[in-house]
């Protein structure tokens, strides 16, 4: 019997496709998310908007609370750890969480190295702003990629930028796929093995499941990201910072499923209350951008 293989890690991520993964901080929120049709919940100590507002050092959630969340729902439970903090990841794995998000939402523990994710039996998801970041994380063992976007803002613009950027760079690879020399220099530029670049060029997409995250706040935002070609949606503050989390959660699930049917997205967008208060990312100083915390 084999456990913790690449097939099992990437296969787990494949089972999430087309779904919505919701940030939760309590067992009660986890049950609301499950009831609304979330495919998984992400346990953390505070939603990104609160982390942003509060400042200070953001760490993994209290294991006792994560355990309560695991007991409250039957869908998979994920948890965030600090970038490079492999000891937090070891604790989360020991706890029995289904997937780890090595996340820029928390305060990075290592400015130089990400976690060596191949050493773990459970799968990892990591954020990326461009193809180089995505392939480096995959090379480190990530089973799933998500856009970084700009967490806790409710501004979808950065997630859009990142998904377009990755798409553009994959198109470039595809256009030179017959030229091994050019692929080789791309591999060098990205700092990843040639084989990974070649594979990406051949299949014309990221070799693992790719979700949108970071600023998705409304059903329309979810429909937009799905039409831009992502495999599914992470919603952080968008649900539990809205005026009616139950309705918002259900509406975002429904919009993710029917992303290409405007009539359905219209129907679910009506009468659901107010979206989370937003912060525009346009004039945000770099020092406040979580997406710049790793590369």
């Amino acid at each position, binding site marked *: *019997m*084999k*456990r*913790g*293989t690449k*097939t*099992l890690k990437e*296969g*787990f991520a*494949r*089972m*999430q*496709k*087309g*779904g919505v993964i919701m940030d939760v901080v309590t067992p009660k929120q986890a049950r609301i998310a*499950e009831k609304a*049709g*979330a*495919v*998984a919940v992400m346990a953390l100590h505070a939603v990104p908007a609160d982390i942003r507002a509060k400042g200070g050092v953001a760490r993994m959630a209290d294991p006792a609370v994560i355990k309560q969340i695991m007991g409250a729902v*039957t*869908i*998979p439970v994920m948890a965030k750890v600090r970038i490079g903090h492999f000891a937090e990841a070891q604790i989360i*794995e020991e706890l*029995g*969480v*289904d*997937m780890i998000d090595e996340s820029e939402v928390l305060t990075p523990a290592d400015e130089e190295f990400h976690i060596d994710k191949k050493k773990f*039996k*459970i*799968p990892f998801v990591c954020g990326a702003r461009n193809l180089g970041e995505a392939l480096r994380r995959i090379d480190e063992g990530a089973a799933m990629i998500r856009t970084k976007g700009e967490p806790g803002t409710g501004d979808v613009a950065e997630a859009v930028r990142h998904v377009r950027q990755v798409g553009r760079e994959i198109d470039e690879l595809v256009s030179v796929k017959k030229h091994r020399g050019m692929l080789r220099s791309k591999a060098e530029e990205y700092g990843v093995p040639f084989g990974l670049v070649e594979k990406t060029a051949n299949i014309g997409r990221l070799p693992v499941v790719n979700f949108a995250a970071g600023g998705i706040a409304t059903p329309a935002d979810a429909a937009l990201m799905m039409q831009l070609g992502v495999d599914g949606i992470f919603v952080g503050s968008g649900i539990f910072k809205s005026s009616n989390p139950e309705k918002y959660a259900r509406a975002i*699930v*429904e919009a993710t*499923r*029917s992303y290409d049917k405007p009539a359905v997205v219209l129907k679910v967008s009506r009468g659901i209350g107010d979206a989370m208060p937003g912060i525009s990312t346009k004039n945000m100083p770099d020092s406040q951008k979580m997406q710049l915390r790793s590369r």
Partner: protein
Amino acid sequence: MRVGVIGFQGAVSEHMEMVDAVLGRGSAVAVRSAEDLEGVSAAIIPGGESTTIGGLMRSSGVFNKLRELGKKGLPLWGTCTGMILLAKKGDEQTKRTGELLGLMDMKVRRNAFGRQKESFEEKLQVKGIGKFPCVFIRAPAADEVYGKCKAIARFEGRIVAAEQDNFLATAFHPELSGDLRFHRYFLGKL
């Protein structure tokens, strides 16, 4: 010939690629409404989250249509979540999945082998197919089969694949194994 893959959530494209590899390009269609089931010769319910897929099948009308077609003899195959939905009975956790299609005489258990940490790969003997590389991801299992339902693979005493007339259920994921034999076997029912 068209084969429908219930296309709301989960390993949809993986099944479609395997179906296309067996029957030829364009044979697989993603089913997201009851109308999408018109004229299909068989259907597959993929793995994903059973609560989500079950809910979306019910709200879209696919659930009732699939049950009706299944009763009329349409070949149906459920993998993982699909296995749960095909069953008549389930354990306590399965209650969260909501109503089941109730087409196969078996009692299923959700997350029978534990969480993702306990997910595993194992080569198992499958009746009618032979040794097959089975990929189990937070997989269910059947505690018992009765009536017309027959177990075709077991692991550690649990039933992980079953067959009943036009219905096939697997707790594991042949669409992730890179081995087409299971898809050939199911599509051989057409």
